[in-house]
């Protein structure tokens, strides 16, 4: 893990003091909400339907057991006893008071954490591979570079008020688990013919209302130059990105409008002034940061043959245990996708439990995945059974990683002011319909993504099956896309046809899966079959006969979340 030095501590402390004063001025009326809004967003604080939400930065998804225990503390002390892990490897708390926000930041600072730039039109938390440092297909460990980018982008004075938010993602592996092609800037480590490390750089990827796959702007930027090169990209965006229309303000729109060649020319024109200048990363700085990410003290072990007489354990191993580059070790994914629970949610007790598990089995470190699960990266294979039993006791051992019920989902209409439709409640309905584990394991890998609106926080465009909440005359409807993929290679799904009601969706998914089962070849995943036979058989079968509504989904039980709660409404809530 990266450890703060005295300078990081000082900067973080000064940020807390700055925001404390800003909150004070807001509460006294000295600052108008319009002026305060941008300030609170840059500290991760949103105003949702029921309360304030804070998004805490988890740089590239790495978290220590002490930091995880701090999340549990925040859940208990300031929230309602739970938190929500996000697709950008962060954590959000949904039931906060504005008055508490400065204290929360101060508590976080004690464990070297913050909420800097987790929202707003600035450079956001850099995401990375959840198996960084342990994956077998890794060229280099991307985390030192992610940390160097984090520091460069933190309070960058020129880039605090960009046309729109700006997201970096970086991977050091050959398989892209960091969705680099759907970020504003994606970096993939490569070695040149001399064996030197550099990055292939993609620009202009993104989801939202106009999804684009990123385009290569540079085939090889030597690692020393990633800051100056990134700075030139963001500078050109700051100058030329559209500011007249919120929905056309992302860099993807600019790159698409002027073309990648012209955009590259402008970046290089700017870069020539700073390339090789003082912001070139030094060997000493790389080594200082990289020293925080050296491999833990692995024991010399050999691979273990796991017990095969326990079907539940074998199911879990098949789905939730991943290969490790060191013999005798494995990486374990703890599922936060349990029936009836919002995807990515964990209680304070679960957070404390995973912290203890990481201390006992994985060198006291955890990772948050963009699939909204948790990873223990360095577990001895010999400990897997004991770990499984402990995880099961905390409700963290659902054997569904990569399966249909490993749903990515945004907060949706139950919480979010932007949503057209409910997401969490729909995820719950799908979970309940597909509760047969044997069936799910037979279906195998399917990425199901739900977004409650076109802002695409649930990344529906890159789900093998994507569900998008749409508004038709004030009613919630859902549009289905199929064929998206988040990486290696990334592509955008296509809409299958007219939209469906909430209560029709489980049946629609069932029909898509029936086509897959009928058409699949041996060993083919859903996405492989879909690519081979094309979308038409799927569309035809879904629409061949009227899609019935599932009766129980029309009952009031499924509307409870939408009615909201009378919990402390935020000071200036837009809805109350």
């Amino acid at each position, binding site marked *: 893990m990266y450890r703060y*030095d*005295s*300078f990081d501590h*000082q*900067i973080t402390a*000064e*940020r807390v003091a*700055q925001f404390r004063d*800003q909150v004070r001025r807001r509460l006294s009326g000295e600052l108008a909400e319009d*002026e305060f809004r*941008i*300030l609170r967003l840059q500290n991760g604080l949103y105003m949702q339907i029921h309360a304030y939400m804070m998004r805490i930065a988890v740089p590239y998804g790495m978290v220590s057991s002490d930091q995880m225990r701090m999340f549990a503390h925040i859940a208990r002390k300031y929230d309602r006893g739970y938190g929500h892990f996000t697709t950008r490897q962060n954590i959000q708390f949904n039931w906060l008071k504005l008055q508490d926000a400065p204290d929360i930041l101060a508590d976080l600072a004690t464990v070297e954490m913050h909420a800097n730039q987790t929202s707003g*039109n600035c450079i956001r938390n850099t995401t990375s591979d959840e198996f960084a440092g342990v994956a077998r297909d890794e060229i280099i460990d991307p985390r030192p570079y992610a940390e160097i980018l984090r*520091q*460069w982008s*933190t*309070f*960058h*004075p*020129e*880039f*605090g*008020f*960009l*046309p729109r938010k700006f997201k970096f993602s970086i991977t050091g592996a050959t398989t892209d688990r960091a969705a680099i092609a759907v970020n504003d800037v994606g970096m993939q480590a490569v070695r040149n013919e001399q064996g030197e490390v550099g990055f292939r750089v993609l620009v202009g990827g993104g989801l939202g209302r106009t999804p684009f796959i990123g385009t290569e702007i540079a085939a090889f930027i030597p690692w020393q130059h990633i*800051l100056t090169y990134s700075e030139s990209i963001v*500078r050109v965006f*700051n*100058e030329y990105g559209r*500011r007249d229309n919120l929905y056309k303000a992302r860099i993807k729109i600019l790159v698409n409008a002027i073309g990648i060649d012209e955009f590259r020319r402008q970046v290089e024109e700017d870069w020539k*002034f700073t390339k090789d200048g*003082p*912001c070139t*990363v*030094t060997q*000493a*700085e790389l080594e*200082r940061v990289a020293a925080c990410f050296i491999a833990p003290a692995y024991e010399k072990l050999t691979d273990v043959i796991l017990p095969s007489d326990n079907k539940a354990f074998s199911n879990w191993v098949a789905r939730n245990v991943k290969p490790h580059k060191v013999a005798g070790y494995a990486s374990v994914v703890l599922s936060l996708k349990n029936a009836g629970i919002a995807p990515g949610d964990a209680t304070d007790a679960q957070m404390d439990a995973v912290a203890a598990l990481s201390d006992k089995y994985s060198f006291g470190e955890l990772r948050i995945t963009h699939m909204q699960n948790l990873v223990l990266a360095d577990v001895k294979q010999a400990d897997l059974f004991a770990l499984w039993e402990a995880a099961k006791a905390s409700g963290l051992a659902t054997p569904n990683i990569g399966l249909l019920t490993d749903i990515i989902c945004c907060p949706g209409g139950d919480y979010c002011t932007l949503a057209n439709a409910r997401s969490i409640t729909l995820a719950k309905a799908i979970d309940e319909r597909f509760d047969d584990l044997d069936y799910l394991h037979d279906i195998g890998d399917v990425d199901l993504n739900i977004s409650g609106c076109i802002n695409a926080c649930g990344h529906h465009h890159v789900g093998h099956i994507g569900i998008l909440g749409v508004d038709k005359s004030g009613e919630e409807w859902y549009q289905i896309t199929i064929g998206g993929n988040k990486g290696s290679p990334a592509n955008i799904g296509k809409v299958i046809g007219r939209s469906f009601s909430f209560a029709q969706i489980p049946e629609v998914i069932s029909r898509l899966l029936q086509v897959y089962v009928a058409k699949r070849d041996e060993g083919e995943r859903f996405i492989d079959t879909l690519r081979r036979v094309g979308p038409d058989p799927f569309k035809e079968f879904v629409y061949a006969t009227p899609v019935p509504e599932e009766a129980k989904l029309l009952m009031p039980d499924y509307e409870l979340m939408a009615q909201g709660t009378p919990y402390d409404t935020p000071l200036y809530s837009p809805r109350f």
Partner: protein
Amino acid sequence: MTTTKQIIKNSTVVNDDWSVLRLQEGDTAETVTVPVGKTLVPLKVWLAQQTVLLHRADIGVWFASDERVEDLQDHVAKFSVIGVDFPKFGDGRGYTIAYRLRERSGYRGELRAIGDVLRDQLFYMQRAGFDAFAVRADKDIHEALKSLKDFSITYQASTDEAQPLFRRVQRGA
């Protein structure tokens, strides 16, 4: 035409006798009358009337957020004051304009933020190259002054620090 009575300059509140010319409806850059006295004129007025204005020592120029430093390139050194307008505080183009004036055009005179200039943006503005701030008239300029000291350490290089933190100090301490 508006007059700012006090501004922050070099981290102090000082009286100010410059006025800012803004084109009103019906005005054109070619025909608008530039008043006597110290005046910051819009870049396009300068470009349209420079043969006359060139002879006045009491003229400064200001950039709108969508204007380009290159348009003034050869003349930057002539001015003792250059302004950059923030039409809304959330429009961040002015930071890059300031950076380019300082780093690429070598401008060393007064660089003044005008328009929607608020306390909580001053720290970044100062780093990007501004040394003068015409804080919005309804705000307390003395209170605003405090935010120039929000941070004592910064990670990146900018116009105020040529070196990033990792070259400035021994990290890891």
